[in-house]
């Protein structure tokens, strides 16, 4: 109904017909503001980024500081040849670079089994398939592999080799050459650069023969067996094991030793098929490492304490000459104390910190996570320093661990004789960073929460105000477009845009109401203006009649009189509505309590006689229906209803006047038989100047039903018009509230 009406209006005003009124799907202000709030989440991202940048700067700074420190130490050691003297003491370890032999708690009996040896040596390293593996394409995976362990106790070195070899080929005693069987080769590189090669071979299980060999590994140098080193070969299910015991004096001064396990599988051709070496990749690692602690150097750097850092000094042969400090932060335990149980608020803080740590991947990782062995990187780093002769610094990452390394060469005149290497944990800075991040995040969460609450409150308040305004505006006019009030109270006292909107709407309503009032007064003004000329015509006609008695029966004069009467009727009905409103306003003080049934009965008596061509049927109950109001106006209303029913009813049709009550409501209805309600005006039937009459000789300004509505509404009632269901015709029903006095 509403949309029909509005559609009509928009057509008239020529507005955009595609404009739809009423709610539309889409985001509401509240949702939009909350979405906007999400953009705040970029702040922690930015914060995170800036903290990261800060971290980078800090690490950079730390690196520079370390570099300077190493430079300082190097300067301290400059041109002091004696510090790097080789004669200072016995090298503590030899063997491949990565691995120092374990210090054993006790000596191992040479007679002990392979299993016992492997248990004693505890750490057995697998060399299978590593980068040191030399073989040809015929190699069957896992057909040959070496496990190797080493230990040192007192002045004895212990080595154990467990070799998996599908075919064990012993030495053929009849042949002179020694390189045609499964064998172990030992290369000892001496401090002076000379190299000794020893071959360990056996014709059968048990003690192995050891010969010093020439570089081609084919011929012995002297042929004399070596005594300082004893070895035994024991065959096993999948291969063989070799136990080696050597005096430290035999290889102790060596700068590097290498074991090669040589595999021969074909007992007929006796070709060497593969070699596995304990030496690091020869192309990458020129030298092994020996730890040769020089007491004087140690004494020098001992007092150099640097937090969470390890200072080491190396000579050109990659021998460790002095060391101090540890890379694991010393205050680590303090940090760890966080994890101890705490209750209450502190507990909550701790827990939230722990959660934050987890989210931020706290750098305070366990000491065990620090890399045990970083010799590869160290060696590469040292090598660079030795080669370039300049100080260097770099950052490293081992999982969560950050290490900063800096080094500086130590000069002896114009020759690099060693290098300082300082490694420091970068995790302190990281922990600082995470602490900052954590604080930042807590702060951000607080701010975010506060902003969220503020914005949510604001959004709800805004929505509430707009909704309120919208509702009030909606109710300011009836669906038919009649104004209920001329102002909007909602938001009118605020200074913001909603207040402006509210005031604008109020102003608009006021203008509209003035315009409506003007329109309502128009009939009165019009009728007043027309009364004077009408009076001229009327009085002139009457004078004409009087002065010319012979014209009394003149038909034209008669028609003129008719015309005047019709005009007068029109003017009367035009003013009727207006004066009725005034009349009703003065009536409010004189409301009567009266019986609607009696009134209707009285009124109906006259209808039949004044409208003889219609059949009137009165359905009036035996009981009384009391209502409060102005009986004169109710009667007037009934007159209008009957007039209307007569005007639009077919001749000889029946007109039913009914009165009844149900509940707290009195009903008064007039039914005619005749044409149905025209659909185009059905909604506006009770508006002024709406009529479906096309009869030129009868004036229907469409004010009758408007008057009906005014009177019904004045009495707190309503009027509806409906087409009859059973037959053609219209039923107009008035509802009035019953009197509260009974």
């Amino acid at each position, binding site marked *: 109904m509403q949309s029909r009406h509005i559609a009509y209006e928009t057509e008239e005003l020529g507005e955009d017909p595609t404009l739809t009124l009423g709610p539309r799907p889409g985001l509401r202000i509240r949702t939009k503001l909350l979405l906007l709030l999400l953009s705040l989440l970029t702040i922690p991202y930015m914060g995170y980024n800036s903290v990261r940048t800060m971290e980078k700067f800090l690490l950079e700074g730390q690196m520079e500081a370390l570099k300077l420190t190493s430079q300082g130490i190097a300067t301290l050691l400059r041109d002091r040849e004696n510090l790097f003297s080789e004669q200072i003491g016995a090298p503590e370890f030899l063997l491949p670079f990565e691995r120092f032999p374990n210090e054993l708690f006790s000596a191992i009996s040479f007679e002990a089994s392979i299993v016992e040896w492997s248990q004693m040596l505890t750490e057995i390293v697998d060399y299978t398939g590593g980068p040191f593996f030399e073989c040809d394409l015929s190699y069957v995976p896992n057909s040959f592999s070496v496990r190797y362990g080493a230990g040192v106790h007192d002045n004895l070195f212990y080595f154990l080799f467990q070799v998996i070899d599908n075919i064990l080929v012993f030495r053929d005693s009849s042949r002179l050459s020694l390189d045609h069987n499964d064998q172990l080769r030992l290369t000892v590189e001496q401090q002076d650069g000379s190299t000794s090669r020893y071959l360990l071979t056996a014709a059968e299980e048990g003690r192995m023969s050891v010969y010093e060999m020439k570089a081609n590994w084919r011929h012995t140098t002297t042929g004399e067996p070596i005594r300082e080193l004893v070895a035994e070969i024991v065959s096993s299910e999948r291969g063989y094991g070799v136990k080696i015991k050597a005096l430290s004096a035999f290889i102790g001064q060596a700068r590097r030793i290498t074991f090669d396990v040589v595999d021969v599988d074909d007992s007929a051709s006796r070709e060497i098929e593969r070699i596995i070496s304990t030496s690091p990749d020869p192309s990458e690692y020129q030298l092994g490492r020996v730890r040769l602690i020089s007491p004087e150097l140690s004494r020098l750097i001992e007092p150099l304490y640097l937090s969470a850092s390890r200072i080491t000094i190396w000579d050109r042969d990659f021998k460790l000459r002095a060391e101090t400090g540890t890379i694991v932060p010393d205050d680590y335990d303090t940090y760890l104390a966080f994890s101890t149980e705490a209750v209450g608020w502190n507990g909550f803080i701790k827990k939230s910190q722990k959660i934050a740590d987890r989210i931020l991947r706290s750098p305070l990782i366990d000491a065990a996570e620090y890399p045990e062995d970083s010799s590869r990187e160290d060696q590469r780093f040292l090598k660079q320093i030795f080669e370039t002769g300049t100080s260097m610094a770099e950052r490293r990452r081992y999982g969560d661990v950050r290490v900063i390394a800096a080094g500086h060469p130590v000069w002896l005149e114009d020759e690099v004789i060693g290098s300082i290497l300082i490694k420091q944990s970068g995790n302190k800075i990281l922990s600082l960073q995470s602490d900052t991040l954590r604080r930042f995040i807590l702060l951000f969460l607080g701010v975010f929460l506060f902003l969220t609450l503020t914005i949510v409150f604001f959004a709800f308040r805004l929505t509430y105000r707009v909704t309120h305004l919208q509702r009030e505006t909606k109710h300011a006019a009836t669906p038919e477009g009649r104004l209920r009030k001329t102002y909007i109270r909602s938001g009118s006292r605020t200074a913001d845009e909603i207040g402006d909107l509210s005031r604008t709407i109020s102003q608009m309503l006021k203008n509209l109401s003035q315009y409506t009032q003007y329109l309502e007064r128009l009939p009165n003004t019009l009728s007043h203006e027309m*009364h*004077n000329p009408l009076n001229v015509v*009327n*009085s002139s006609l*009457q*004078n004409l009649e009087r002065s010319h008695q012979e014209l009394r029966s003149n038909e034209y004069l008669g028609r003129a009189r008719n015309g005047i009467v019709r005009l007068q009727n029109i003017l009367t009905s035009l003013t009727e509505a207006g004066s009725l409103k005034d009349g009703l306003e003065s009536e409010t003080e004189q409301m009567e309590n009266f019986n609607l049934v009696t009134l209707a009965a009285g*009124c109906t008596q006259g209808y039949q006689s004044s409208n003889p061509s219609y059949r009137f049927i009165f359905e009036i109950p035996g009981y009384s229906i009391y209502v409060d109001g102005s*009986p004169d106006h109710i009667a007037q209303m009934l007159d209008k209803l009957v007039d209307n029913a007569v005007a639009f009813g077919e001749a000889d049709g029946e007109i039913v006047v009914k009165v009844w009550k149900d509940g707290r409501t009195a009903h008064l209805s007039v039914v005619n038989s005749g044409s149905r309600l025209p659909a185009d005006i059905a909604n506006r039937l009770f508006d002024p100047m709406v009529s479906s009459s096309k009869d030129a000789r009868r004036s229907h300004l469409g004010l009758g039903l408007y008057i009906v509505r005014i009177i019904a509404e004045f009495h707190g009632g309503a009027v509806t018009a409906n087409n009859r269901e059973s037959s053609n015709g219209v039923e107009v029903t008035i509802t009035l509230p019953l009197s509260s006095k009974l």
Partner: protein
Amino acid sequence: MIKTIAIVEDDFDQRENYADVLVANGYEVQRYGSKDEALEGFRKSLPDLALLDVMLGKDMDGGFDLCLSLRNQSQTLPVIFLTARDSDADRISSQRMLAWDYINKPVNLEFLVARVHSLLQIAEHLEQPEDNNSMHTVGDLELDQRGMSVRWNQDAVNLTLTEFWIVEALARRPGHVKNYESLNEVTRQGLVERNTINGYIRRIRNKFRAVDSVFNQIETVHGTGYKWSRD
């Protein structure tokens, strides 16, 4: 003696039409087109009766001003308002200024002459008081038909000519219903809507209630008319 009637009407056509019919009926007529002209004329000589339009040119209430001025000169001079304005406020104003009648346009000239005649007679009668022959009593109501005066419980009720005629018509036969058609004739105004009759009755009741707050002598017969209740 020829009676003089003043016509104050800004519309020449209407004024001349009124004048013609009154002259034809043997009255002398003074014609005025504006308030100032009329005031000037009234200073020279007072008419026996005045027909006033309320709106005179741009002067919205010129007729009311004239009425007041006439009242100052004579308490008994009959004044008839002839106007297109039909609001209760205007009627009440006219009443306050002791106008004797208030007629809406268009005016039936025949009825106008009759009114003028009646009012002149009443005015004449007022100058020769205590003629008891014309007194008519119904219960507590006293009607002086010739003097157009009404008393209720000895208190004077100030009615216009039309109202007087209605009260007279109702009170003449108590208990008898006067329907709208016959009341229409009584008002001598030509065709009158029921609403207009209802308006007259309402104003009459109000005037009686002003002297007797429980006045309830005029009964409504809904849809038909009114009656003067029998005691």
